[in-house]
């Protein structure tokens, strides 16, 4: 049994150690995801706690294939919601880079799968480096400076990659009749 399977089993057993174990393994990772979006340690920690609560309430019946991705998806949604709420109250100081890509409401699972296919197909068609730049900017909301430094690019180089990819993605989505 892998560590993740063990943690999921604890959730299923309604054993509170599930949260402790999940926190030990993914706590810092989740905090980073939240912090990149909110830029506030306290808000980030609140999001982490909310994430564990959501996981506790949804597992079972959910049985995630990847616990890491499952928790990440929850905290990302929580952090973005919190950010939007703060923005509405004029508390958020920064425009969220994630918003640059736009939003989309998939009416059903079939439509969601269709957009996933286009998005994944596009990201698979570019180099791994460009894909990583895109994901770390628009999924993890990393600062451009940090992406540039990690991948050995200049900041303007990162922006050029992002601009080019955004345009290519927009064209591909348009071709498929998807408007964001």
């Amino acid at each position, binding site marked *: 049994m892998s560590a993740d399977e063990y943690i999921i089993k604890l959730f299923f057993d309604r054993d509170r150690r599930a949260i402790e174990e999940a926190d030990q393994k993914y706590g810092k990772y989740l905090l980073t995801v939240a912090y990149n979006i909110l830029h506030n340690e306290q808000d980030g920690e609140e999001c982490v706690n909310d994430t564990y609560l959501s996981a506790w309430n949804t597992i079972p019946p959910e049985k995630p294939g990847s616990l890491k991705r499952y928790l990440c998806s929850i905290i990302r949604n929580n952090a973005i919601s919190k950010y939007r709420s703060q923005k509405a109250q004029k508390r958020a100081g920064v425009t969220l880079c994630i918003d640059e890509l736009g939003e989309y*409401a998939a009416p059903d699972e079939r439509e969601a799968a269709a957009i996933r296919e286009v998005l994944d197909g596009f990201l698979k068609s570019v180099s791994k480096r460009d*894909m990583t730049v895109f*994901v770390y900017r628009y999924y*993890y909301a990393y600062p451009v400076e940090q992406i540039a430094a990690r991948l050995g690019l200049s900041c303007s180089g990162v922006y050029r990659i992002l601009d080019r990819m955004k345009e290519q993605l927009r064209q591909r989505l348009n071709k498929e009749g998807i408007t964001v």
Partner: protein
Amino acid sequence: MKKDLMSYCGDDILDAADKYWNNAKKQTLLRRLTVIGVAALLGVGIIAAALLTAAKINKPVPKPPETTAALPLNGVSEEVTAAVGTSASPDDSITAADTAGEITEPYPVTDEESRDPEDTTGKTEDSEPPVTDTETEAGSVTQPPETQEYKDPVFTAAEIGRLFEEQGREDVVTNAYIKIAVPSETELKYRYMSIPDAEKIGVYKIYTTGVNTTKAEEDRAQKDWDNVCKALGITPPEFGQYFGEKYVLYSGAGEAWRTFQITNRLEGPVGVTLDGIDVTVDQSKTDDELKEALKPVRDKLCELFGADLPDVHIKRSYDTESEYGCTGIVVTFYNAEKNGVDINVCSCSDHIILNFDNVKRGNSDVLSKTVLKKVYVTYVRYLCEPEAICEYTGDARLISIEEAEELLYKGYVFGGHCCPLCMAAQEKVSFENYDKVGLVYFEGVPFYAFFKNLHSDTPNGNAVYARTLVPAVEVSGYENYFESQKEFHKNR
């Protein structure tokens, strides 16, 4: 319910991105450890050999010459500028604890805590290409002899190829040539140096050596922090990193330097103003006019950081689409005397970079025809001598342009993937009747840069040139290397 687009992204994509991200860090660490290890071994070897020689001839060990003859400073090469930009990498210092398994964290974590539990990859995908025995033997000449003069050949083709493959940089990763947009051929001046009228040329090694930040340095950094905050008109926040309404500030330590960055917030063309002095440039001015206009900015920054940087270097970038042609201007304040080596070869002493941007990123961005306000200010203070960053390793024979042309026409060119298969995948460019040739330094090694005009019918009227590189010193094993690349890439 509306969701942001990336929330539809598949897990396999996210996993692949995480893997690449982790490998990027591992590669960086591995490279640094290798460089430090090799430098240490070479150092021990050289000292031992020198002591032995000195003992034999019973006289003191000679000091190496200072540097080779200075090359004309008539513009900076793309590679050198990129090196200037990346040498001050904030990531190196932000993430001293950044050995994170999945993604970087704003808080220090230990190696063990942060390791990606699912990441069991030991070897990166971009592992080095195979090197033949012949090439390895020839490679032994790279160790500089005592006379500081190379015997030909200086490098093997595999060693030259590795210079590019290890960079992972945008302009070199997948291309044997890159495309450059400029308003006119004259503006190519930012992309090369003049070819010296000499038989020999200096060869260097670029290092990032490990230097620990001292308490005095930390105190000085704190003082810089307070000074800059005051000049920006903000109450000094907690030292280190600050996300304000208008600016992002960052101060940190790298392996051999300290950096201080002032960044505009990403939305809108917000300028940086220091004690009432606007950090802007008017792109319609000439380089000389810019230098003059930027004097107050330089003086203010030098005052804030307690630096002495009398010299100015300017590089402009262009593209084919932006309405105003110029996508940015990079201004570097430095001290040529302290730098020792020409800044076109390496920027290895304290400097300040003003990176003025003119690229549209969001709906609120406003591009400018003249005055550029969107600027990233980076101050880099080295904690070691320039020689520890850029070491002169000897003079080598500068091959003639005719010899370089012969290599060019054979396709023995560099600039990223040197695999003939990858190169064939690019749009074919014939460099017959090329338009311009100049010299550039890349990782301390001189190259001839050949430019060929491709076309000028771009949306903004800028001309597009292809640029490819041929080593300017003698190199062995071209044929074997380019053939081995075919096999290497077939098997990837």
